[in-house]
């Protein structure tokens, strides 16, 4: 049917009952030189992503911490700048005979702002790098996929994968312990 016409297809997904089966299948795909493979699990499973991680995936993975650091740095700078400017430049005023630049008293606010901006950095990193929110995604077309967030384990090979050939690939997947193999349309 035209639904299978090339370019209309996102990839082929396979559903597994246990994480072990998924791992086994993953290894076979790796050996078969597949690279554009995605895994969908109800809880973080170590190592899966690492196997097929491409260049830009690595970048996106490593970018998390720097973004958070930048956030924190900006926060600290804001805190110090604001307080010094207010007390020394904009409105210097004798308060309780304390020095205008009572820097020890400025530490708490600087610290809090550091944390605040850093965690903003964290959220930003998390959302941007994961391209979230992303309400529409072809993988949701996979039948039974709602269980990927509950108790089933999915993988999906994209058609973009150089090795992709929907006959062979499908056969390869059916050879695994997959309980269900199907095309995932765009």
């Amino acid at each position, binding site marked *: 049917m035209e639904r299978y016409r090339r370019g209309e297809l996102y990839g082929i997904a396979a559903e597994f009952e246990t*994480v072990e089966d998924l791992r086994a299948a993953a290894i076979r795909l790796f050996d078969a030189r597949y690279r554009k493979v*995605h*895994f*969908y*699990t*109800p*809880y*973080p*499973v*170590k190592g*899966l*992503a*690492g196997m097929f*991680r491409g260049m830009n*995936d690595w970048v*996106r*993975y490593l970018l*998390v*911490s720097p973004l*958070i650091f930048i956030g*924190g740095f900006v926060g600290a700078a804001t805190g110090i700048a604001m*307080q010094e400017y*207010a*007390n020394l430049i*904009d*409105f210097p005023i004798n*308060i*309780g005979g304390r020095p205008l630049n*009572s820097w020890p*008293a400025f530490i*708490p*606010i600087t*610290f*809090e*702002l550091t*944390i*605040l901006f*850093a*965690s*903003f950095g*964290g*959220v930003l*990193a*998390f*959302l941007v*790098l*994961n391209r*979230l*929110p*992303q*309400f529409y*995604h072809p*993988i949701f077309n996979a039948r039974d*996929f*709602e*269980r*990927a*967030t*509950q*108790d089933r384990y999915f993988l999906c090979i994209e058609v973009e994968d150089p090795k992709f050939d929907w006959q062979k690939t499908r056969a390869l997947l059916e050879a695994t312990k997959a309980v269900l193999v199907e095309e995932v349309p765009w």
Partner: protein
Amino acid sequence: MSEAPLIGPSETDASITATVSHLALRKHAGIGWFAGVVFTFSLVLLLFYGIAYLFIRGVGIWGVNIPVAWGFAITNFVWWIGIGHAGTLISAILLLLHQKWRNSINRFAEAMTIFAVMCAGMMPLLHLGRPWMFYYIFPYPDTMNMWPQFRSPLVWDFFAVSTYLTVSIIFWYIGMIPDLATLRDRAPKGISKYVYGVMAFGWRGDAEHWERYEKTYLVLAGLATPLVVSVHSVVSFDFAVAQLPGWHSTIFPPYFVAGAIFSGFAMVLTIAIPLRAVFGLQALVTERHLENCAKLMLTTGLIVDYGYLNEFFLAWYGNNLYEKFHEFATATGAYWFAFWIVILCNVGVTQLLWFKPMRIKPLPLFIISILVNVGMWTERFVIVVTSLSKDWLPSSWGMFFPTVWDWVIFIGSLGLFTFLYFVFLRLFPIVPMAETRKLVHGESE
């Protein structure tokens, strides 16, 4: 290892998912929940009534006066903030310490944090003489060319508490995204499905996402840890920076933080014990969870007790007339009863936790946790009020007596807290499913 299991042996991915999401998705939450909501909401109405009258007439409706210019409002503030500490501690510090047992309880502990901080944040606002001018505390380009006075601990408070609230919410929400996805996928077709769908940000459990998710979560935990310590230190500065005998003390920051965690865990237990009974979560919130909380209470409790001891010791050792008199007046003066309640609850009762049965048996533990909550609130009261009632010049000594309106605000805030909690229980995954699934599979961070 001989430790009691963190999770029931029979639990599977499916069973966890089913139990937890059922709580949020079921049609009818049961008469108990409904009754609870109605009751607590009536308390919320009481709070609003109290606040309305407060704004119309002024803080004079409370018992505050000169010299005791701070009363219940600040007491509540410090107490609520303290309560708020356990949540972040569980989710952040214990995460960093690879304490797996945190996994099943951190969600509602974090919720507790957020609601507690909300109640706390409300208090300083209400206690202002001119609450409608609260924005003078913000640094913004105003028409007066003025700035907040950055040397004032109250300004530090403002920054600390708002930061704490924001970070807690972020932390809580990010941790909840996968579970919201679960709810999205389990919810029957209808509005709720879309709501969960939007809240889940389109999470699909992609392994790549999981990796970055865990990394972010870990770093956030790293940030939240110093934050949680800083917040109550800053709150303690409100007192430590002032020069009143009984306030001006360098031990306050650690002693406040410990007290905060102490009361925080008390509140966690006060909530967890009925929760697991009512919602049948014994398999997820096991005796070992209770015991660990109990142990933490004992530890922090002992630190607090040390704080008390230290105050008296230093008063005697420093041989400062005012300090000595203050300690004496605290123990035997007009507010002796409050002081001895503190000693009874925070020093006496805590020691029961040395005995294992007390740590694992729900009922005694529940009672102890209640007593500790009472004790900690009273401690805040003693710190705020007794120091003020007798300071330097005998001529200006005076007494504070709460009025009905003081109680209305306090009880109202309790109502607000529990009401928000009931709402949370109904709509959100109260146990982090993804994390508990990890436990099933024995995955470790």
